[in-house]
């Protein structure tokens, strides 16, 4: 009778510990579950946005209506992926021949701290084909980041500056601003060309 109570007490503690461990595990799992960026194909990319054009004027998604467009996000300090992707779009436009002018190319700088609207304009001019260069306030960038489900993260450096991790896909959007297809940065050029042909209805 005397060693009965401690045994029950021990058993109760065991149950409590087990419950706490389980709850902790569930919480951790949920956090982990929430972390990765959405990748499901049923998520509609695109939507309303307001940004700033090279002249410092507001530029909304409505200005792109009526023509398909290819939109890419980056920053001018980006070492490779941004120039490579914009070069690629310029090449694809040439490969499309007469259909090459049936769509717009849009570059959005997600780094308004370093890229002024004028700088973005001067940057896109280097590629030798018409490209609409845009940027915006932090809030405006946040809005379009959300609309396109982009991964954009400032990474602080020891010197006080920062780099930006960002999604490197090219989004192909229809004439009504609807999502049509995506060109991955590693995608084969012929595949990319086929997608663009589909986009412009060639």
């Amino acid at each position, binding site marked *: 009778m005397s060693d009965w109570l401690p045994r029950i007490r021990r058993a109760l503690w065991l149950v409590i510990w087990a419950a706490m461990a389980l709850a902790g595990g569930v919480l951790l799992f949920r956090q982990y579950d929430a972390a990765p960026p959405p990748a499901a194909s049923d998520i509609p990319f695109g939507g309303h946005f307001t940004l700033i054009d090279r002249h410092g004027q507001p530029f909304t998604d409505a200005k792109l209506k009526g023509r398909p467009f290819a939109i890419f996000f980056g920053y001018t*300090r980006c070492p490779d*992926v941004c120039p490579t992707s914009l*070069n690629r779009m310029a090449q694809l436009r040439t490969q499309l021949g007469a259909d090459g002018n049936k769509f717009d190319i849009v570059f959005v700088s997600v780094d308004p701290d370093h890229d002024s609207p*004028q*700088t973005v304009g001067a940057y896109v001019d280097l*590629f030798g084909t018409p490209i609409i260069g845009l940027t915006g306030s932090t809030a405006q960038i946040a809005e379009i980041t959300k609309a396109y489900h982009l991964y954009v993260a400032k990474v602080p450096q020891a010197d006080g500056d920062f780099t930006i991790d960002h*999604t490197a*896909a090219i989004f192909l959007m229809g004439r009504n601003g609807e999502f049509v297809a995506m060109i991955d*940065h*590693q995608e084969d050029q012929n595949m990319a060309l086929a997608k663009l042909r589909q986009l412009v209805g060639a």
Partner: protein
Amino acid sequence: MTKNFSRLTLATLLTIPAIVQAAPTRHVTIEQPWARETAEGQAAGGGFMTIVNTARQSDQLLSASAPVAREVQIHTMSMDGGVMRMRHLPEGVTVPAKGRLDLKPGGLHIMFIGLKEPLRRGTHVPVTLNFKNAGTMTVDFSVQPITAALPMGHGQ
């Protein structure tokens, strides 16, 4: 005979300083140094090169500087699940013994940070590279159009 001997001595004496001077730093050479052109107002730009190390020990590119930029940093870039990531390498990069290290698009590069003027295509910018063993050397980086994946004449 005496004349021949003194000629030989003179020739030997003349050769020695040349060897002594060349020996310590020429284990590292730079091939194809080039930079991407930048637009007016652009804060930073990238530079690329191949570092060739003929020494029996590895070497390290510790730092770099250039008059055209406030600072030159050594960076790496990688793609991770469709996301572009760029990182500063404050310790620099190691060049293997009797080997080469490529700083090329898609990976390692130097970043000209705080550009005082745009990098204009067709021009050259001097960059001073500081190696742990090979010491300091200044190399002219050729500025290429942004549309170039590799420097002119070196396309794959």
